[in-house]
Each structure stands twice: as C-alpha cells, then as structure tokens.
C-alpha cells in the first residue's frame, strides 16, 4: 500500500471515527473516549508509517505495534479492518459470544495484533523486549507502543523506560495519548503526571510533544521518531482530546466508557462528518 497523503489521512481518520461509533453500537458499549482520542495517531501509523502486510500478518520483519491502552480496542480493531486485515462483517459481533473481538485485543484471535493487552502497564515492557529482540536478530523493524496518560501511573512503565534507555533502544517509539483524563477524573486531579515530559527525559528518552489531532504535525513528529538519530528511545507526547470529534463527548470525563442510543450514534456521526 502506498503511503497516504495528509489529506487522505484526515479522511481516513474520519472514516475510522465513524466506524468506532458503529462498532460501539454493534458491541453494545465501548471505551469510545480514548478510542476517539487515539484515532488520528492510529490512522497515521497504519496508513503511513508502519511497515506491515495485512496479507501476511506474521511477517517476521514487520514493524510491531502494541496498543498498551488495550481498552481502546474499539478504535484499534476497526483500524485493522480498514487496513485490510479482516472484513467489516466480523466487527458486527464485537463483544458478543465467541467473538474474536472483546473490549481488549487478543493477539491469538485478532489478525494484525502483535500483543494481547488490556491490563494497563504491560505494553512498554513487552515493547522493550521486542526492540531488544530486533537487535539480537539484527532486524531493523521498529516497535511502537501506544500508552494512555492515566496508564502512565503504573510503575512498570518506569521500569521499562529505564531499561529502554539503558539498552539504547533507538528502534523503540512510545506514544502517549495525552487526553488528560483517566476513569475517575482528569489525570492531574486523580494522580498528577506533570511535569510529564521531564519524567521521560529524566529516564533517558528523547521527548517530542505534538498536537495529536493535527495530522501534519503528527506526521512530522513521527518522521523524526522514525529517523531517530538521537541515540535514545523516543517518546511522543501527543496532546489529544478525549472523545475527539463527538460534541457531547469531547473533554468530558464520562466519555471514558458507555453506550449510545440510536439518536446519540446519529449525532456522533454527524459531528464526525462535520469535523
């Protein structure tokens, strides 16, 4: 697949957001807030950056992606569909009996998914392992891990951050979906993360901050991360809005998880169309 242009990526992200709404309806409920905040990041990765082959999901040399914030499966799994891993019909059974798709992605069942996640704080350690493994195997694939900001409360992340810089994992990219919310409230009210960039820097990472909804800026930042000549692992803190694109969800703590009635789903899709 050729890499999409910025305008094409913007359109694709809209398509993904719309599919997130549909999938939430099919599933009965979902963690739509964090899925919508990650939608542009996922789109940029899957349609421009990740070197992958949907016809050959287990290709050894592919770039690896870990959705450490596994509850955003309702964004990630539709994205894999759009990228061509499986037909849309399979999404209609999301969450239901025997579906390969539950709220949290299971790599044994979801084609294109590199790691099973859902328990927060597991993705970065696994990412360190994959990036280290690439060095052992002398392969030049990248490993990208997408984290939630609330997720960055988990101590395991800091253990992994320490290891990543210790081993100079320049092939590892961590992206934090900095939407400012966790379940119980704003991150800074529940458990303050700031000065957040300083924390990553103190652990030996190169840190870039960008607007996680500005496709141009996002791609420019990912370009730098891909080219990484800093000698350190790269973290991107992507400033985002929880529930982005849906007027009644944006920036609302209640956007974390829930269900849509048909009027809300319609409204949500309208809002996305008007983005």
């Amino acid at each position, binding site marked *: 697949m050729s890499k999409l242009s910025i305008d094409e990526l913007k359109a694709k992200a809209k398509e993904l957001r719309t599919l997130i709404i549909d999938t939430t309806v099919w*599933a*009965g*409920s979902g963690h739509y807030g964090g899925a919508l905040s990650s939608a542009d990041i996922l789109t940029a990765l899957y349609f421009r950056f990740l070197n992958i082959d949907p016809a050959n999901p287990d290709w050894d040399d592919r770039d690896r992606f870990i959705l450490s914030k*596994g509850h955003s499966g309702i964004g990630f799994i539709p994205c894999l569909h759009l990228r061509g891993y499986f037909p849309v019909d399979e999404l209609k059974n999301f*969450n*239901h*009996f*025997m*579906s*390969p*798709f*539950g*709220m*949290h992605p*299971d790599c044994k069942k979801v084609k294109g998914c590199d790691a*099973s*996640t*859902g*328990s*927060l*704080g597991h993705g970065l350690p696994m990412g360190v392992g994959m990036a280290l493994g690439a060095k052992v195997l002398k392969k030049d694939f990248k490993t990208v891990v997408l984290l939630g900001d*609330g*997720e960055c*409360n*988990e*101590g395991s992340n800091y253990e992994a951050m320490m290891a990543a810089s210790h081993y100079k994992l320049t092939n590892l990219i961590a992206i934090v979906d900095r939407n400012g919310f*966790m*379940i*119980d409230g704003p991150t800074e009210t*529940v*458990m303050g993360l700031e000065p957040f960039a300083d924390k990553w820097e103190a652990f030996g990472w190169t840190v870039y901050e960008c607007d996680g909804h500005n496709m141009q800026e996002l791609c420019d930042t990912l370009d730098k991360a891909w080219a990484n000549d800093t000698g350190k692992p790269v973290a991107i803190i992507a400033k985002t809005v929880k529930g982005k694109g849906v007027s009644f969800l944006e920036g609302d703590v209640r956007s974390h998880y829930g269900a849509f009635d048909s009027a809300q789903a319609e409204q949500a899709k309208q809002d996305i169309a008007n983005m």
Partner: protein
Amino acid sequence: MAEKTITGTSWNVYDANTMSAREIYGRVMRELAKTNDKIVGVTADLEKSTNIGIFGKDFPDRMFNVGIAEQNLFGVAAGLAKVGLIPFASTFAVFAALRGAEQVRTDICYQNLPVKIIGTHGGISFGQAGSTHHCTEDIAIMKSFPNMTVIVPADGFETGKAVEACLDIPGPVYIRVGRGFEPPFHKDHNFDFEIGKGQLVKDGTDVTIITCGIGVLQSVNAAKELQEVDGISVRVINIHTIKPIDKEIILKAVKETRRIVTVEEHSIIGGLGDSVAAVIAESGKGCAFTKLGLNDEFAVVGYPEDLYAHYKLDSSGIADSIRAIMGKEFEADEDWSDEV
C-alpha cells in the same frame, strides 16, 4: 429501608433487587465508617467502577485514589493498616489477585494486617472484556496466602453482611464480587451470615451441590428442576467462605448424600472445588465427586449470561452435570462414627 444494628455499628439494609453488590458494598462501607473512624478507603482509578467512591464522597479525607497503580494500592493499604487504620482496598478482582499479589501476600498477609480487599468484576462477570479482565484464579491465589480469609458472597445482600462481618476479623480479608448485574439469591436480609460457616439453603438426600457466588441461585434453580423433572433430591450448600472452609457441613453432606458437585465461577484448579476435595480426601470417606467451573482454559469473549451457559454454570448446565454424576460409581464406606 430497614435499620440494622450490630455491636456498636449500624447500617441501613439495602435491597439487592434494586442495587448491585458493588453499590451495596460502597453504601455499607459508608455506613460503617460513620461510627468507625478507623475505616479508610483506597483504590486505583476505580473509585466509580468499584463503587468505593460512595464512601469517598462522604469521607473525602479518608479516601485515597492512588491512580492506576495496583502495587502501590496494596502497599499503601498496608501502610495505613500499620498505623492502626482499617483500609478497604478496591480494584477489579484480577488486579488485586494478580497485579498486586506480592504486595497482598508480603505486605498485607505476612504482616497480618487488617486490610479488607474488595475485588469486583470477579470470575467471568465482565465477559465482554476478555481474558485480561476475567478473573478465574483469584480464589486459588488468595486462599494460598497465610492469614487471608476468602469470601465469595452469593449476592448483594450477602455482600453487605460480609462487608460488615469482615471488620470482626483481625487480619486480611478478600471479598470477591461480580460486576453486579447478577440476580440476587436471597429475598431479603433476614438470614444468618457467619464467616466460616456454610449455609444449607436447600435440603436434599441424593446429591449435594456445594457452591458460592452466582452458583448459589443457579444451583437452587437446578435443584428445583431436578426434583420436578427427574425426581432427584438435591441438597444445596452456600459456602460463601472458601477459607476457612466449613468442614462440618461438607462431611455431613458426604455422609448423607454420597455425591458431591462443586460449582464455582472460577478455574477448577485451586478454587472452591479443590478445597472441598481436600476436606473429603482427608476424611478418608468415599463419594462421587465432580467440580464444575472453568477448565484449564482462558474463557471466550461474550456477555456473562452467554458465558455462564457455555461453561455450564447456569441452572440447566448444572442440572445436566448432576444427572451425569447420579450414575457415577464410588466405594461405599458405612463406618462414619470415627469421622463425623
């Protein structure tokens, strides 16, 4: 809403027909905290999801949300207990039993601290969430920790009683509840609840089901069906306390019915079934025995009702298993005087 008073504390009795077990937990804890100022709450970004936030709303100075950090959650709870407080620590069962397991074992159980752990979304009650959120190992893990008391209430009414009763236990207690949409077993709060004491909920002579949690209601329904359709007389025991286990009620059932089936929303490895099996084996008495639960497997995805049916934990699945055990052979041993 009835008022209930127990040795110095009083709390309102909530209706499990209209409230989830989680909600009742938060409310009872809040009531108990009004007269016991040692009670504090700790959670890890699941104030709302576990409903400990109901307490937190009224007692913001005694509620601590440590963020998404379960190891810290149980370490902090241990510290609070060390200085004389009684922490209730709430998260999903899977994160209590697995993520925080070493803190629970080494900080809380080893030092025998009065931390009350309420694990919600236990078993496969959060079926759609998949294996990262299912928890079918917590009973096995928690019961293996010295000093730990393990309780799996049948419903919200029983959860309320367990939350109250756990204050009388000087050490750590683990109470496992579901997601909260399970129908209640008890009609109201008028029943006796004593930690460590099984409850005979239905008498019978042919076979006994020993169960806990959601299994209680389903087993009673299965027993009714078996009586009506097959003429099988089924005894049902609600053994809400897995540890310490009520040996007496188990051995009595072995003696009187000679067929035992355990039903639990848990792996059949290490759970209630294995506790019951050990009691029977140690007694030296023979009986037909079957454990129902999840086999050595991660559960599939789906809404809980579908999963309960799939894993034969609903009344018709249980009834089928009872029919199967009725034909099972066992060696008779008529000399019971030495054991029971």
